[in-house]
């Protein structure tokens, strides 16, 4: 029942737009002559968890990077939490404050301690007093289960720990939406679980999440919808049970057969 809800939201009247977290409509993007995103339409409601998968080069990372304007789109509209993304720097900053992002390569700041990594944005962007920022940082470090690493530098942590710090860093800004760009792809196999567990907990708390990943177990467990992309297009989008049990397109079937075996 719940899994069907997202499908319905696409046809909700505009007056209920407050429930929409991210809305991409008719989005196109080119890198020079290369057409990376072709007519992307995706509406994500608040609290929804979307898993995006697809072969490499299909544009899935580019798509979520457009949502916090790390990449600019050239056609169509992207509205994030009621703010349309344009060249307007103020709008972009507004969106970035409310959208957290976790990268494949963690991108922690190596010259700052774990605690400083977490408090940097609250102090400089939210203008929070240091004591308060520290308190929040410790709270989230505890939540990702590594409070004892606060004083260390990122280089001293394992990959899994670094990625959990990166998640905590994003959470410290109390984002409304979290973007994950292949968060487990550069981790050793035994560290994938600790990161996925953290993400499952986050999902259970009702966070709106867009996750680019090939972890199909994670998709089954937490996603409301799975989006399959190929060659810059959304090929198929469905609730996970349907998506895995009954893929519609040949391309999806091929992809699933390769990834699940």
């Amino acid at each position, binding site marked *: 029942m719940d899994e069907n809800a997202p499908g319905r939201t696409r046809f909700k009247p505009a007056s209920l737009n407050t429930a929409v977290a991210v809305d991409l409509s008719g989005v196109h993007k080119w890198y020079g002559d290369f057409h990376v995103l072709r007519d992307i339409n995706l509406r994500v409601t608040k609290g929804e968890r979307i898993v995006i998968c697809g072969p490499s080069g299909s544009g899935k990372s580019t798509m979520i990077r457009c949502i916090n304007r*790390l990449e600019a789109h050239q056609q169509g509209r992207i509205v994030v939490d009621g703010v349309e993304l344009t060249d307007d720097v103020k709008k972009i900053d507004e969106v*970035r404050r409310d959208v957290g992002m976790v990268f494949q390569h963690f*991108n922690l700041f190596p010259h700052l301690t774990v605690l400083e990594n977490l408090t940097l944005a609250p102090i*400089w962007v939210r203008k929070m007093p240091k004591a308060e920022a520290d308190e929040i940082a410790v709270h989230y470090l505890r939540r990702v289960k590594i409070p004892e690493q606060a004083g260390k530098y990122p*280089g001293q942590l394992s990959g899994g720990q670094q990625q959990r710090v990166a998640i905590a860093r994003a959470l410290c*800004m109390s984002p409304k939406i979290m973007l994950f760009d292949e968060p487990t792809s550069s981790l050793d196999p035994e560290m994938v679980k600790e990161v996925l567990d953290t993400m499952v907990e986050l999902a259970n708390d009702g966070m709106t999440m867009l996750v680019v990943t090939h972890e199909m177990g994670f998709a089954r467990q937490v996603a409301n919808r799975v989006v399959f992309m190929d060659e810059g297009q959304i090929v198929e989008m469905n609730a996970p049970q349907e998506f895995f049990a009954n893929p519609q397109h040949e391309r999806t079937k091929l992809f699933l057969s390769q990834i699940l075996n």
Partner: protein
Amino acid sequence: MSDTATITDARLSFVRDRPFDPLPPPLVHSGAIGWLLQNLFSSFTNILLTVSCVAMVVWLLPPLIEFLIFDAVWDGSSRADCIVTPQRPAVGACWAFVIERLGFFTYGFYPIEERWRVDVFFVLLAFGIGWMTWLDAPRRGLGMIYFFAVMPVLSFFLLVGLPAIGLQAVSTAQWGGVLVTIVVSAVGIVVSLPLGVLLALGRRSKMPVVRMSSVIFIEVVRGVPLITVLFMASVMLPLFVPESLTPDKLLRALVGVALFAAAYMAEVVRAGLQAIPRGQYEAAMAVGLSYWQAMRLIVLPQALKVTLPNIVNTFIGLFKDTTLVFIVGIFDFLKTIEAARGDVNWATPVTSVTGYAFAAMFYFVFCYAMSRYARYVEHRLRAGDRR
């Protein structure tokens, strides 16, 4: 069981029944002899290098020490004390000359009764440098304000003069010696780093106007020799600007040196910026930092750390390049020595050599100090995040 044993015996007949003879003991690798063997006499090439280096030292060092110390003349008031006489068959460095002209080397033509002002300036500067370079110093934020705002203003009025409070005006034409060398290099260093950072960021900017202006500035300034820049500043500028508006000669040279150093610094900083992965900037953007915050808090601290050896290299080059200001008639430290060594009162065969030796030691002390300090900072920064 016995079967197996016989088979084993038959098939594995190569098994030794006696232990090997003991191997010779390893070469000594500990203690003084071990160290010598390992580091100085480990191979034919190494032995050759060691022997030739020792020979060089034996050949050069004793005469040098003899000249600079044992045969040197420490007291005296004129050339008579520094020439070869039957009583004094060997004369080394004429330090008496340096000691007598030390005031000139330090202050140039600065009025003798006002020289205390220069001394106060040196103390103010040393205090500021100490505060800035001592990384664990208390109140470093206050130190920054002192170094970049309070001290320059104080020094300016102290050196130039402020008749209102009784400090007699001293024209910069009277400045000279160490004073000029220090002023030119301090201004060059303090201006070139921030300006170089801005130019480097400008060169990587997405805005075409900013990028093009940065590129043009950097390439034009790097494309001409410093002497040309100084000539332009001191000879050509007055041709185009009315005399009343022509800035002071020293000021023109200062601006020339600072801009010249900034262009080089820009390329050094750009190399550092290039070394920082794009992900760092993206992560900073993603948490909502503005461009300037991302640069100041994330990218520049890492970039400047990577490129610190090159920055100090540029500073050292700048410090020595200040000697070129003599070409536009400014009496820097080297120029005062040049002027003094022609003094008839001190005309001896060793006067010039002594003067140049003194200059070499002066420049070496400053450059080596900068180099050592950079090593210390590098070491500390590395300890900071790669434990």
